[in-house]
Every structure is written in C-alpha cells, then in structure tokens.
C-alpha cells in the first residue's frame, strides 16, 4: 500500500481532488472527521494528514511514500526527498515584512516560522540578524515589538494590510510540490507511478 502525506488545508483538498478525478477514491473520507488516516476504496493507497512542516519528515524517513507540500516548507526542511513536480497551485511568496524597514544602526531581530530560510537569506546578503522561531501568528511579532521584522508567506497580502505591515523584500516564490521518498520511488515504482500521474494530472515524471 502506498502512503500519501498531506497537510490539512487547501493543498490537501486540491491533491485529493486530483486523486479522485483519476479514479483513486476515498469513500470513507469526510472533511469534518477528526480521523487522520483514510484508505482508498481499492486498498492500494492511504492518505495521512500531518502538519505541513512534518510532510517532508514523514516522506524522507519513508513513513509516507508520497507527499504534497509547499516549496516554502521544503526549503525549511533538511529531509532528503525527490521533488518530482511543481503542481502549480497554492502559490505564495516568502517575504521580509515589517512596520518599517529593518534598522541599520543595530542588529535587527527577525521572527519567523522559517528560521533556516531566513538565516540563509540574511547570510547571503551579509546582514547580521537575530532570529526568533515562532510557530504561528508571526504578524504579531513586530506589532508587539518582539521583532523588527518577520519572514513569512504572503498570499493575498490581506493579513499584512489589516495589521499595517509592509512587504520589503520577496525572498522566493512558492507553490505546491509533489515529493516522493527516494527509496520508495525506486522499489515501489509500479505502485507509485499511477499515484504520481494522478496528482500531477496525468503527466508522468
């Protein structure tokens, strides 16, 4: 059986839609259910719902064979996975934001759910910063003066606007990626291929 790791939310809905469209159905699946594992009707696959940041971990350690995850999460992860396709949905940007530009007369403090991406970005630009790791509501950090700026994903920009925050730099763009465990891809190729093609809308990779 092939295990597919999904992060509950828009990426999972879209991924599930594609599986169902190609005939891999999950009649037991109920969006409102608190169940975390659902088997496909033909018992050839199962979907597991995990936190977005945990999708690369489950896939790289081989607990899940396939996963759908944002590029932003992949950049933050150190797990080894094969990134087979850009699924072209869930588009967003990873940006440096704040109430005002970062101070230049002292070491700026940055709050982020993406400490590794932030560190790489500021190191590459020769800017010495202190990074505080937050798990959520990162926009609060500059408002409550916990940090001078934040590194976070921006989709519509509405949350930032409502909190009077501005985007100063776009670090990178992100969208949903189809990932696979390198070992599973080799040794379960026959079983994995139809699932990959289903998620990637019929395109083989």
């Amino acid at each position: 059986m092939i295990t597919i790791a999904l992060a509950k939310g828009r990426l999972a809905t879209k991924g599930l839609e594609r599986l169902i469209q190609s005939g891999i159905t999950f009649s037991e699946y109920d969006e409102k259910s608190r169940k975390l594992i659902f088997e496909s009707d033909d018992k050839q696959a199962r979907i597991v719902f995990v936190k977005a940041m945990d999708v690369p971990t489950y896939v790289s350690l081989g607990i899940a064979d396939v996963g759908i995850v944002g590029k932003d999460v992949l950049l933050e992860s150190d797990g080894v996975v094969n990134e087979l396709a850009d699924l072209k949905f869930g588009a967003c940007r990873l940006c440096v934001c704040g109430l005002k530009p970062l101070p230049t007369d002292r070491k700026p403090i940055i709050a982020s759910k993406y400490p590794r991406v932030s560190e790489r970005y500021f190191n590459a630009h020769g800017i010495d910063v202190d990074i505080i790791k937050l798990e959520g509501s990162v926009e609060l950090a500059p408002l409550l003066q916990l940090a001078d700026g934040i590194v976070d994903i921006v989709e519509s920009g509405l949350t930032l606007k409502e909190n009077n925050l501005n985007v100063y730099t776009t670090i990178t763009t992100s969208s949903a990626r189809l990932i696979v465990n390198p070992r599973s891809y080799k040794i379960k190729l026959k079983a994995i291929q139809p699932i990959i093609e289903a998620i990637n809308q019929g395109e083989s990779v």
Partner: protein
Amino acid sequence: MTQRQPLAQGMSIKGKEIYSKEDALIYTTLKCFDSYGYDVIEPPSIEYYDVMKSSGKEAQQNMIKFIDPFGDIMVLQADPTMSLAHYMSKQSETSLRKFAMVSSVHRAYTLQSKRHEHFKQVGIEVFYDQGNFDEEVCELALKALELAQIKDVVIELGHVMFMPSLLQTLRVPSVLIEQILPLIQAKDMPLLEASMIDLPLQVQKIIKKAMTWFGPVENVVDKIKSEMNDPLLLGIVDELNQLSNYLKQLNPKINLILDFTTQKSLSYYQGLTITAYSPQSAQPLLSGGRYEYKEEESSLSMTAIGFGLNVALCAKLSTIQPTKMSTIAIITTPEKKLQALFKANEYRTLGNRVHVLFDEDEVKTTDYDQMIVIDKEQA
C-alpha cells in the same frame, strides 16, 4: 515488573536478541569473505584528516574533526575505504589486495537527529591493477544479504558515469553539466527543467526521458536501447545487464533493479554502484561501488571496488533466530556470596544469563525466567 529509569539520550540497551544477531552476522559474513581469500583487518578508529580529503566536500562536512596533542587535525573514522586506499597508495607496487573489515563509522549530527551518528559496518575492499572484480564483489554483497536473512531486499545496480556521458553526448556545455548533475541526483524536476531552459527542446526531452531510466532490469534496458544508439552508453547498459544476468543465475529469486540516474553518493565513485534497500528501512542496508583513487600529491592512482553493510540495521531486520538464553536471578546474602557466584557460573556455562542479587526487590526490575534463593537456611 517495575520500570527502570530510562538511559541518557544516545544510549540504548542492546538486548541479547540484537547483539547475538549482530555477532552472528559479523561472524558469518567475515567467514564468507575469508573463504574468498580476503584478509580480515581492523581499520583505525581515529584517522588523519588529510587521509579523508578524497571523500569529497559533503562527506568532509559530516566528519567529526579534532586536534591531537601534536597539533595534527584528526577525524573519527568516517570512511574506512579512505584509510585503506591511502595505505595502498603508499605501497611501492600496486598488486591485488583483498580486505575484509568491521569498522565503526562516525558522522556529525543532522538537524533532524540532533545527535552525532555512529554505526558499525562490515564490508570488503579489493584493490587491483588487472582484470575486473565487479562480479565477485556483487556476489559477496548478495551472499552477505542472504546470510543476514532479510525479507524483501531490493538490490540496485547503477553506473555513475552514465548520466555525465549522456549529457556530453548531447553536447550540453560542461558548466551546465556541473549544475544539472546534482539536480538529477536529487530528482528535482522543477529546478532541472528551469536549468535546461536554454537547451534545444529535443535535448530537454531526452534528459527528461532519461530521468525515468530506472526500475526492473528488462524494462530499463529495453527503454534505453529503443532510445539511444551511442556505443559508449550502450556499453554501460550492457555491462550492467551482464552483471544482472550473472547475479540472477546465482539467485533466481533476487529482486534486482537498475538505475541509470545514479550519481556519486561518494565523490570518488567512478563506475558501478551497488545499493541494497528494504521496504522496512529509510537507510540503505548496503552500499558500495567501484572507484579510482588518486592521492592529491601523487601521480599514483589505483582501481578498487568494495561495499559496506550496516550491521545494526541488518540485524534489526534479520529473521535469524537468536540463540535461546534463559535469564536467572540468584538471590543471596553477603555471607553466602561465594556460594552464589559459583552457582551462577555453573548456570552461565550452560548458556544462561545469570544475575547475582542481594536485594530481592531488584528482581522486580527485570523479567526473569527463573529465580533461585541461596540464603542461610538453604546453606
């Protein structure tokens, strides 16, 4: 039974089931290698950093380095192949040498594990200047895995020169080849597609197709032969196909795959690679390959091939039945201690695991098969 306090992070109790399997695995594989004429050696556990330099940048980053009292940079053994290759490069004549070894390999921690990693591996290295030892080494890899008795093993053969040769045949500029190869290794399709944007469409199409050149032997060989007619590339395909046929003759039940997208897991690999996987493990059970070793300051180079098998991982997945051992507790008093110790030795020579205890409460902390009390009354 009451629970003992857990051990500190990084320590684990290696129960009799595990260590007896590990010992059995090491003993049987070394015995097997010995029967093929391999000299069993023990590589150094601490090595000069200079010796490890040929391992490549990535491997060097994961080495645990320190400075010894004489000011030399040392590393905890990270790749016994390098120690052996360095030794061989200092010999005045390069002739056939076959080594078998058990060694501990140490690597610096990853963010995920947050602990330095070390594991025991048993393996072989053959240094030669005449002929080819691919069949013998792959045969021994197969035998080692058979001795480990692991279910559902998949053996993958690859060739690290296939993809670079394909890209050269397609006249991809060498700067771009350097960029593309790591992306092929990571099977990072979005970045690969972006990197190839300036190449002719036909070339892009072939490279994308080549990314699927892995899987069961017949499928892959047929796929490549229907697409390519370059003699160099077809030569590599035939080489792996012939080796696969030989291994299938040795064990018709073998689950064998070929991967022509394989890249160098270690920078010195130059040709054939062999890796064994199990669906129960994220780590390979065994990995190895053929390489050309060249000392930085010397013109001497030599060819070698070898592999290492991860002992703990294979023992964990092995279906070998460990030797049955009963655990006996002998409860005694300080006055009757010697009598109890003699009794314990009697039981141990019969193959049992025996604890001599002075406190009856201790018995509650472990699961004993039998309890014997030697106290004043009995004496």
